[in-house]
């Protein structure tokens, strides 16, 4: 038992040593910023940064372009829109391609509506992040609100009817006990009691 404890201690020591040495190993690497490649240095291990990127075009920050892409779903199965996928899932190859399609259509002078319609024609209705509110899809949009409204109206109607019934029957049910004036001391005690039980 003692021996195993000692062994564990050694292991822990080696683990600590590994933790301590890891950053040093990095520092001993060959990367040297700004060496010999013009304005930017090269990375020691470019594959560790993921898929090589192309420089972004400033026009990609256009709010209208982002808005169009946020209404279109990526087709990789990630459930994200094109904009979110291409700026988040950097291993996805679908969203950058779809982005290029959107940019190309925009460069052709198509409006947002036309770009979206083109995507629907090409990829089907699943290309939209939310189905068009028409036909069967209207059920999707309207049913929850309609159900809540109907239930609310029914609830108010039932409550009103019960209220009317209660009001009609209350004179006969009410106890014929006249109110008794309470002293200030009794009132104070009652207030305290009410404050205790109020919840």
């Amino acid at each position, binding site marked *: 038992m003692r021996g195993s404890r000692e062994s564990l201690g050694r292991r822990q020591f080696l683990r600590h040593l*590994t933790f301590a040495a*890891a*950053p040093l190993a*990095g520092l001993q*690497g060959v990367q040297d*910023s700004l060496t010999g*490649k013009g*304005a*930017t*240095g*090269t*990375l020691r*291990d*470019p*594959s*560790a*940064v*993921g898929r090589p*990127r192309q*420089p*972004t075009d400033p026009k990609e920050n256009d709010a209208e372009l982002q808005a169009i892409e946020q*209404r279109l779903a990526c087709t990789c199965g990630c*459930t*994200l829109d094109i904009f*979110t996928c291409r*700026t*988040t899932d*950097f*291993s996805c190859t679908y969203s950058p391609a779809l982005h290029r399609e959107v940019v190309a259509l925009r460069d052709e002078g198509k409006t947002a509506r036309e770009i979206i319609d083109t995507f629907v024609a090409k990829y*089907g*209705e*699943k290309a939209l*992040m*939310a*189905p068009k509110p028409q036909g069967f*899809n209207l059920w*999707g*949009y309207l*049913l*929850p*609100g309609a159900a*809540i409204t109907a239930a609310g109206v029914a*609830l108010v109607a039932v*409550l*009103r009817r*019960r*209220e009317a*019934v209660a009001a009609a029957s209350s004179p006969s*049910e*009410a106890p014929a*006990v006249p*109110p*008794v004036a309470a002293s200030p001391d*009794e*009132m104070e005690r*009652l*207030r305290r009691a009410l*404050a205790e039980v*109020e*919840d």
Partner: protein
Amino acid sequence: MTVLGEFALWAALLLGLWCVAIAFTNQWQHRPELSRSVIRSVYAISGCLLVASIALWKGLVSHDFNIEYVASYTSRNLPPYYIFSAFWAGQKGSLLFWGVVLSLFASAAQLLTPRRYAHLMPYVAGVTSAVIAFFVCVMIFAANPFERLGFTPADGRGLNPQLQNVGMVIHPPMLYLGYISITIPFAFAVAALLSRRLDVGWIHAIRKWTLLSWLFLSIGITLGMWWAYVELGWGGYWAWDPVENASFLPWLTMTAFLHSVMIQEKRGMLKRWNFGLIIGTFLLSIFGTFITRSGVIASVHSFTQSNVGYFFLAFLVVACILAFTLLYTRWSLLQAEVQLESVVSREAAFLFNNLLFVGIAFSVLWGTLFPILSELIKGSKITVGPPFFNRVNIPLGLLLLALTGIGPLIAWRKASTANLRRQFIAPVTLGLMTLVALLSIGVRDFYALMAFALGGFVAGTIIQEFYRGVRARRRMHGESFPAALGRLIARNRRRYGGYIVHAGILIYFVAFAGMAFKQEKEATLKPGESVEMRSAFGHTYTFTHVGISQYEALNRIVSAATVEVREDGRQPRLMTSEKRQHVDSFKRPTFEPSTEVAIRSTVQEDLYIVFAGAVNGTEEAVYRFNLNPLVWWVWFGGLVLVVGGLVTMWPGAGPVFSGTRPKNVEGYQVAVAGAGER
């Protein structure tokens, strides 16, 4: 150890079946030794599942890669705390985690429930054992965590990089604890129905459990949002993903129950509704697991998919039929003791609140399932994403926020016009002032305006409630303000804890509305190049790319892109976003490179920097910069909500009134000025 683990699973299954057989055949009612046997079986099941859990942990810690689960979710160079959390990182382990925690909760319920509910406990044991037996069945026949490989790999695959985050160490267990603990109130509800003891006893017995379960769900959901925000890198925290929705559904119905149960306790109403809510909440928790595991709906959580989903579907259908049939057979015994007296009353406000909670739950469920329905009916696949859910749910959410402020202002039984005027004037004024102030500074987003204005109104309600309570105490007892506030909360924990929870919800809404003003920008920068952004709060940020450095850490190669951030020309600070290529102990890549976001959070806004990649292997970096307003308040709102929940469930804050209030009370009446107004 795996043999012991498998043996323990079989023993747990047999004990569970024994428990179920005895509990539901009512033999125990005539033979006390059988009753004791049922209860002891619950403890024995816990013991068996603890042994199985220890066996799995032993396999994980000792790197026994011959166990398929260990090889799939760990590697030799995985940090120790992630080896610990790998227990619930995969399907099989999380099923065992579910089983063992449920068995511990079931044992705790047997141990901690007062003796006066002894008539319910064998049934409770039967229900909990049935659920545990189901989970153990799934493990034994479809997802065995002790399954061995035909060979022993030199190293495991390691843990998904996105799960290597402290949020994922805490978030799944919290959510599971929420899901799992729902079984206990459900078991008590079924026990009450079976035993025909349908008074408020079962409700008192489960009060702490429902709060605990709600609290765990709340913490789990908030931590999940935090994990998504810091780890997934898309700049938000809620995407209406089916799995997110699955966790939200039971939270909604449980919150509805926590409100409606007060009506039953105080007025003897809504008995059937409350049974329905508890049963529904339990079924939704199973539904959530089905959604997560089956893959019937596309989700970003697809890494958890397998064929066990259909076990859950079968269980869901059976449980649904049995529970609602049982409720139907007791329908006539669940008459309300009194009728609601007025539409303008606290009870009616609670009813509308319940309607909205259940309505939102329906709406979320409907949206989640709509792609399946569309495919079944129209034959075409559709995507139902955030734009759909936002369009349908934001108005409902705002209505709910309004009711959060309205409910506490209306008196029980019947509110007079004078009472309404007196109660509403200050909160409504505060709400209107907020609206005017925001309009005057140029805010025009309709939903954000509504959220902030209603937030002002709800804040007014909460402040007024505290102020009046403190003022009354100071007047009656002559206490100082802090003492009066402290004692007010301590003496009415349920009520004022509830208001603190409302404050947390209000903070959530305001923070959510803040995201309407978020800004994002993509930029490709060479070292020394800058990009500028102006935030909704008027701050100007200059982001200057410093460079990319690469180094090796324990189980990854890190590429760290550093940005110098200058706010309004002040002293700069550095922020670093990373790309991480995880490797096994032989330095072989295990997963696609993952991204670590750089975040600087203030009460106004978050700076959120994502290093998207490098251009052609150089230090020229592609970034996404986000300015996310009010995100800090989401986490703060979560904290307030948890504090409120803890205050509410602190021991001694039990229900203050139970049973039926007779309509006609003998004795005398006292004319109290303002009575009935609160």
